[in-house]
């Protein structure tokens, strides 16, 4: 893992000290809210519907056990005993008091964490594949690249007042687990003739006007990464629309100017910037790579795993659903679901966080990952330890075998917390999960991604859900619009709208009719919902949704 240098530590400490003084001045009345707001946002502090909210970055989703334990401590000491993991590999605390936030930031700094650039019009927390360093299909670990980008982008003087937020994701595999093409810029590690380099995507994004990112460079040599990214952001910084915040994102710039014009401008700028990068960035990159050296993997017998797998159907169901292939034989990647049926997607209690920290330390080379799907990952566990891990998870409500299934729903906070929301998301996710658990259909249905947002900003990724749900306010009533056929992988696609929305009490029955249609019409049990949709199209689903007499028109 990356360890802060003395410079990093001093920088964060100084920043916290500044913010503490600013909070003091806000409380004693010498700063107005208008003066204070940009200062608090620079430090990840929002004001939501019912309380403040502190957003903490988990760069590329990587955490150690002691960091996770500190998050648990913060949740207990200054919040309500839980935290909320988000689609951007952040954790949000929903109930801090203004006066306590400087102490929370100091507690974070003790474990090399912070909330800098988790808000505002800057380059946000750099995200990465949550299987980084572990996946069997990986070309190279994306985290050193993400860390290099993080260091370059943190407080980069040219990029502190961008037209809008800017999000970068990195993946080291052909299989995309980082939703690359929904990011402003994405970096995919590729190999060409034995040389490692990067494919660069630009102009993806969800929210209002969702767009799938386009390839800007098919192969960029490793040494050119930072000057090239700097050229991209710099071109957008000049060209991006500042007259209308809804048109400010780079996806609109790319759309308005065309990818070839953007490419031309970027190459021109790159030619100017390239000589300024003397190679020191690559020297730094090498030291960062060393920080991410793989742990010492043990060669052990995995008979214990096989025995448990044969004898215990509960363990087997969990193993089949929640484990993925590790690049080292005998090892596995375990995904820990934060989606127990009826739970709030992404929430973990402080005691669950401590359990996860313990498991990482005892069995997982002290590594944890937060996935953009709002789950936790133990990236390196030996198969022989999995029965024991499973037993511990079970005892703490963390053994739900539903990764990638209908109840593994991404849901943004929606109107239960978010000041921008137009409807609730969380209870819709809870009701769908509980309903399909009661029907005992979850494993029959197989792989299916439902994603829910509480407004057009799309924090819940609904556009790229196989089934996307968008909560809206229609004449003072919560209404839910459905999209079908979205895809967050390397085959990224935006979902298609089915038609008018459904009321709060109608949305679960509507999802049930969609699933019924899929189960009736799928080719065989192997054909997933998405494959069936791609084969038969919208029409049968639409009639299942709208031909029913029970439906009350909601739009």
């Amino acid at each position, binding site marked *: 893992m990356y360890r802060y240098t003395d410079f990093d530590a001093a920088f964060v400490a100084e920043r916290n000290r500044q913010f503490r003084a600013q909070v003091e001045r*806000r*409380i*004693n*009345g010498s700063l*107005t*809210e208008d003066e204070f707001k940009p200062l608090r946002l620079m430090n990840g502090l929002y*004001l*939501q*519907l*019912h*309380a*403040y909210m502190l957003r903490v970055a988990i760069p590329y989703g990587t955490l150690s056990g002691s960091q996770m334990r500190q998050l648990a401590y913060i949740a207990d000491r200054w919040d*309500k005993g839980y935290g909320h993991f988000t689609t951007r590999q952040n954790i949000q605390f*929903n*109930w*801090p*008091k*203004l*006066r306590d936030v400087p102490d929370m930031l100091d507690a974070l700094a003790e474990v090399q964490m912070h909330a800098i650039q988790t808000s505002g019009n800057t380059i946000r927390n750099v995200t990465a594949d949550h299987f980084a360093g572990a996946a069997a299909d990986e070309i190279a670990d994306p985290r050193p690249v993400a860390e290099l980008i993080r260091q370059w982008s943190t407080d980069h003087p040219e990029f502190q007042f961008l037209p809008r937020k800017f999000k970068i994701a990195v993946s080291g595999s052909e299989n995309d687990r980082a939703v690359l093409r929904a990011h402003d810029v994405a970096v995919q590690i590729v190999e060409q003739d034995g040389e490692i380099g990067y494919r660069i995507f630009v102009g993806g994004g969800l929210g209002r006007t969702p767009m799938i990112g386009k390839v800007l460079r098919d192969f960029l040599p490793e040494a050119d990464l930072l000057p090239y990214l700097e050229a991209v952001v710099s071109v957008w910084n000049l060209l991006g629309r500042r007259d209308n915040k809804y048109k400010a994102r780079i996806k609109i710039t790319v759309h308005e100017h065309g990818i070839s014009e953007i490419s031309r401008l970027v190459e021109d700028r790159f030619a100017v910037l390239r000589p300024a990068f003397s190679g020191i960035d690559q020297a730094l990159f090498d030291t960062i790579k060393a920080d991410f050296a793989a742990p010492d993997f043990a060669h052990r017998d995995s008979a214990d795993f096989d025995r448990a797998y044969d004898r215990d159907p509960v363990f087997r169901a969990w193993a089949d659903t929640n484990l993925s292939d590790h690049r080292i034989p005998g090892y596995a990647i375990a995904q820990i679901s934060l989606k127990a049926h009826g739970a*709030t997607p992404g*929430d973990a209690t402080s005691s669950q966080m401590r359990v996860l920290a313990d498991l990482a330390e005892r069995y997982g080379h002290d590594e944890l990952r937060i996935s953009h799907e709002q789950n936790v990952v133990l990236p390196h566990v030996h198969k022989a330890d999995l029965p024991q891990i499973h037993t511990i998870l079970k005892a703490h409500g963390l053994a739900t075998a539903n990764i990638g299934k209908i109840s593994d729903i991404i849901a943004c906070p929606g*109107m*239960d*917390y978010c000041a921008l929301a137009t409807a*609730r998301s*969380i*209870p819709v996710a*809870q009701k769908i999960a509980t309903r399909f658990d009661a029907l005992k259909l979850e494993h029959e249905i197989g792989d299916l991604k439902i994603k829910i947002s509480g407004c057009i900003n799309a924090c819940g990724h609904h556009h790229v859900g196989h089934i996307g749900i968008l909560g809206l*306010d229609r004449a*003072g*009533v*919560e209404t839910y619009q459905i999209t079908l056929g979205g895809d967050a992988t390397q085959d990224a696609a935006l979902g298609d709208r089915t038609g008018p929305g459904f009321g709060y009490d109608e949305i679960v029955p509507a999802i049930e009719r969609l699933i019924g249609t899929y189960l009736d019409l799928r080719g065989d049990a192997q054909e997933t919902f998405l494959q069936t949709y791609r084969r038969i199209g919208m029409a049968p689903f639409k009639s299942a949704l709208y031909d029913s007499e029970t439906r009350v028109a909601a739009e």
Partner: protein
Amino acid sequence: MPKAFTPKVVTANALLEGDVVYLSEDDRWVRRLNEAELLTDEAHADLRLIEAQARHAEVVGAYLADVKPGPNGPEPTHFREDFRRTGPSNHAHGKQAEAS
């Protein structure tokens, strides 16, 4: 034709805790909507909002929210104000925790 004025309350978030507060008739920030001052006159409502906004060392983001008169005081007319009045649906946190 200008829209007819509908009843309002002044609401905001408390500076220190962040939670939802309402302005009462006697100039206190109260936690319960039904204790808020019901504003039925537009000019008076505008004045109360200006007074509330001046109290920036106590609250953040004061605005006028639509309500209707009820037997026990103002009641929300929109679901957003209803959630602000109670707290989130997934946990009994926020006001609903204190009210019970």
